[in-house]
């Protein structure tokens, strides 16, 4: 037990990493699933353990291969990334419960064990990006998660899944290349890859043009990965044509981890003074974030495919997170971090609900879902609760996020931002209402006429996430408390 506690940071990564190739060897579909479920839940337990250690003893540093930082690779867990680790492993574990029934309906038998391998690799990559304290190591794990995501998206049954995956491959590679160029330039100026060391050594050379170029490359590269408007073009198709399980997992985690890396680089390495007081990144982030909210939400209103509708809604929600980053205050960052968690929970649940519909009807075209609320009441109830949370109705997590965001905007004296955030919610009302109207105010006909409720194996994970949406909406002390601790750590920066 002592050994496990001491090596917890690396086990968090190595356990799913070793489990992924083992899935290929185990081969049998059921066996692989049980194994993967055990692994992801163990990862959730480890993330919880790390959080407890951080809360009681402060940041943890783990040296790979016994090499001291800044020479060796350091895994560094503090209040911010312990929170993200819990988020990623929670979603990974819950979504996997849902996987067997859904992939049986959507994937050929031969691909099943490879699906779990790719899923666990993606899971490893996302956890790795979060936990590492080494700038280049972030890039390595970014590639691990991206490459496995491309494979997962391409598994979609629709032929357009291949095109969507290829589109994401191109855009994602451009993003990753920009990111690694930025890291290369920083390495050139500082001679180190350890984040904390880099933050210190960057201070004397901040005024150079090389650092400015690195800053620009990192901003664009990461904005692409987190799907900031107008660099979001890869996202709608990727989410729409991937298998439902995959959409749910990546929609809830991938962009969130990129937001975390963005925070780590701009608040941690460059520092608040350089990124915001000198270069005024907020004048770039806040308008683009708000534009993203309005454009993506408006496009969502006109979508007929529900997966695409929610994909555009995700772009809008990323907009809110970016606005929170641009407000440059503890409250603003709390809003971003709490919304990372909240959006992951609600969007995960919404995509799982869509997966239930895909299983029964084979489609999520709005035109074919008339009266579905009467045939699949439990699934659609989940969708409605998730939708209410997207809008930001009190007693759902969406409200908590909006509350912090609006208070942060008012705190800064930017009341137009607060007004625009609230107006953005009205657009969410429009696209959610469209679905509710079709589902509940029409008689079932065509495909929906003889649809039946989804099986319990799908409903249970969906409702676990909906339950979290409502629970953390009613008592936000846990999530908001952790988010505030993280925000305070971020505002302090990495350089002492």
């Amino acid at each position, binding site marked *: 037990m002592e050994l496990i506690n001491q090596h917890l940071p*690396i086990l968090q990564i190595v356990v799913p990493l*070793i489990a992924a190739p083992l899935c290929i060897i185990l081969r049998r579909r059921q066996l692989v699933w049980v194994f993967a479920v055990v692994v992801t839940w163990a990862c959730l337990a480890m993330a919880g353990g790390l959080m407890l250690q951080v809360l009681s003893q402060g940041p943890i540093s783990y040296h790979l291969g016994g090499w001291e930082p800044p020479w060796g690779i350091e895994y560094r867990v503090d209040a911010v990334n312990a929170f993200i680790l819990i988020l990623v492993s929670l979603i990974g574990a819950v979504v996997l419960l849902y996987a067997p029934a859904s992939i049986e309906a959507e994937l050929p038998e031969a691909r099943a064990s490879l699906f779990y391998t790719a899923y666990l690799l993606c899971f490893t990559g996302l956890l790795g990006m979060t936990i590492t304290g080494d700038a280049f190591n972030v890039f390595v794990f970014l590639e691990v998660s991206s490459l496995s995501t491309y494979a997962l998206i391409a598994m979609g049954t629709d032929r357009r899944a291949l095109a969507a995956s290829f589109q994401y491959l191109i855009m994602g590679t451009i993003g990753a290349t920009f990111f690694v160029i930025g890291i290369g330039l920083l390495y050139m100026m500082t001679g180190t890859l350890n984040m904390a060391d880099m933050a210190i050594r960057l201070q004397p050379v901040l005024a150079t043009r090389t650092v400015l170029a690195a800053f620009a490359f990192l901003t664009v590269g990461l904005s692409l990965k987190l799907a900031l408007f107008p660099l979001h073009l890869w996202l709608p198709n990727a989410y729409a044509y991937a298998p439902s399980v995959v959409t749910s997992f990546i929609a809830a985690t991938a962009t969130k981890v990129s937001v975390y890396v963005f925070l780590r680089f701009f608040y941690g390495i460059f520092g608040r003074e350089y990124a915001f007081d000198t270069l005024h990144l907020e004048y770039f982030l806040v308008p683009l974030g708000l534009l993203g909210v309005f454009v993506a939400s408006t496009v969502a209103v006109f979508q007929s495919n529900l997966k695409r509708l929610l994909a555009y809604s995700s772009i809008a929600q990323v907009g809110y997170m970016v606005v929170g980053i641009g407000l440059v205050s503890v409250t603003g960052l709390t809003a971003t971090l709490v919304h990372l968690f909240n959006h992951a929970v609600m969007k995960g649940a919404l995509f799982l609900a869509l997966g239930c519909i895909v299983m029964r009807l084979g489609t999520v075209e709005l035109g074919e879902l008339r009266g579905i609320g009467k045939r699949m009441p439990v699934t659609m109830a989940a969708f409605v609760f998730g939708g209410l949370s997207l809008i930001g109705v009190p007693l759902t997590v969406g409200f908590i996020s909006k509350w912090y965001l609006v208070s942060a905007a008012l705190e800064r004296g930017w009341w137009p931002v607060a007004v625009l955030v609230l107006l953005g919610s009205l657009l969410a009302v429009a696209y959610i209402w469209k679905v509710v109207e079709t589902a509940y105010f029409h008689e079932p006909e065509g495909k929906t006429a003889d649809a039946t409720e989804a099986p319990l194996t799908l409903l249970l994970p969906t409702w676990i996430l909906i339950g979290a949406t409502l629970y953390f909406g009613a008592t936000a002390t846990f999530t908001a408390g952790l988010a505030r601790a993280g925000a305070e750590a971020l505002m302090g920066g990495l350089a002492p």
Partner: protein
Amino acid sequence: MSDQPILRVIAKMFIPFLMLFALYVQFHGDFGPGGGFQAGVIFAAALVLYALIFGTEQAKRVAHPQALQLLVAFGVLLYAGTGVAGILMGGNFLDYGALDHHDPVHGQHLGILLVELGVGITVTTVMTSTFFIFSARKKP
């Protein structure tokens, strides 16, 4: 291309040397340029050359796709397993020095050898599998 005698004879002459060179690059990687990735690519090149000259069906009898898939996984496991062995022997993950308590330098040698072997196996099998997958595609 199995009807081309010159290609067949030259390929048969070259393939053993390609493989031997791959093994040299693999195991001399500790002391000179090289290592698992380069060696894996060279070894895979030998298999791909064989497949090009004698046909993929023949090549699949040498390197069975199922076996390749298992070896892809095995290479990663060998790498990660060496890292975990470091933990079990009382060091940190990937701490090769802990692999041999009497002589840490020997432990470092052993660790890097095993890790690079894992890389070599996975790179060889991934490259060969990728070639088989692309060559198995039906012509449009």
